[in-house]
C-alpha cells in the first residue's frame, strides 16, 4: 500500500548546528512533496515543497533534497534555532487529480540551547 515513512522518530541537535531530517516514500509515481512543521497544539505549517522534476530546492535556512532513484527526501535546516523545535512531517502527492497528501510518521526535532 501507499506509505511515507521517516527514518528517525527523534533528532536532538545543538543550537547553531545544522539539522537533517530524512524521509522515505514508497510511491515512485508521486510527483509533488511537501515538508510541514507542526508545533504543539497547532496545525501543520508549510515549510517548503519540491516537484519531481527537481532534485534540490532552497528556501530561507531550509533545503529540500529529492533522490528519486532511492525514493528519499530530506530536509536540511541551517543554523538550527530553539524555535525550530517541532515535529516535522514529509508528505507526498500520488498521481491523482485530487491533491490528496500522504503523510509520514513525523520526526521530532529537539534543539538544545
Amino acid at each position, binding site marked *: 500500500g501507499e506509505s511515507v515513512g521517516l527514518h528517525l522518530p527523534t533528532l536532538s541537535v545543538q543550537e547553531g548546528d545544522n539539522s537533517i531530517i530524512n524521509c522515505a516514500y514508497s510511491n515512485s509515481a508521486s510527483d509533488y512533496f*511537501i515538508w510541514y512543521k507542526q508545533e504543539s497544539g497547532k*496545525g*501543520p*505549517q508549510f515549510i517548503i515543497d519540491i516537484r519531481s522534476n527537481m532534485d534540490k530546492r532552497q528556501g530561507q535556512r531550509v533545503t529540500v533534497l529529492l533522490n528519486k532513484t532511492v525514493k528519499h527526501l530530506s530536509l536540511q535546516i541551517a543554523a538550527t534555532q530553539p524555535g525550530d523545535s517541532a515535529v516535522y512531517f514529509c508528505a507526498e502527492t500520488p498521481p491523482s487529480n485530487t491533491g490528496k*497528501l500522504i*503523510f509520514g*510518521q513525523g520526526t521530532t526535532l529537539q534543539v538544545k540551547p
Partner: protein
Amino acid sequence: EPEVTQTPSHQVTQMGQEVILRCVPISNHLYFYWYRQILGQKVEFLVSFYNNEISEKSEIFDDQFSVERPDGSNFTLKIRSTKLEDSAMYFCASSSQKGRNQPQHFGDGTRLSIL
C-alpha cells in the same frame, strides 16, 4: 497573511451524537480537504472537495461522514453518529485555484473528544 480558521478548537461529545466541525478556508482557494490525526500518530487524509463535490475520500470516510460547503466561505465536516475511535484532531486545509500541485495550508484543528 491569510489563514485557515477552524471552530471550535475543542469539541466534547457523547458517543452516538452528531458533531459538526467548521472551517473557513483561505478566501481565494477552491480545493478543500479534511484530515485527522490521532494523538501521537501521523496525519491521515479523509476527503478532498472541489467544485461542490467530493473528489476523493479515504476508507476512514464512511457513511457516517459528510462534508458540505453551505455558503461561499464555510466548509464543514459532519459525523452523524460519533464513535469512541473518532476521537482525534481534525484539520481542515485548502489550496489555491491554480491546481493540485500547490501547497495545502492547514488550520490549527479541532480536537474532538468522544465520551
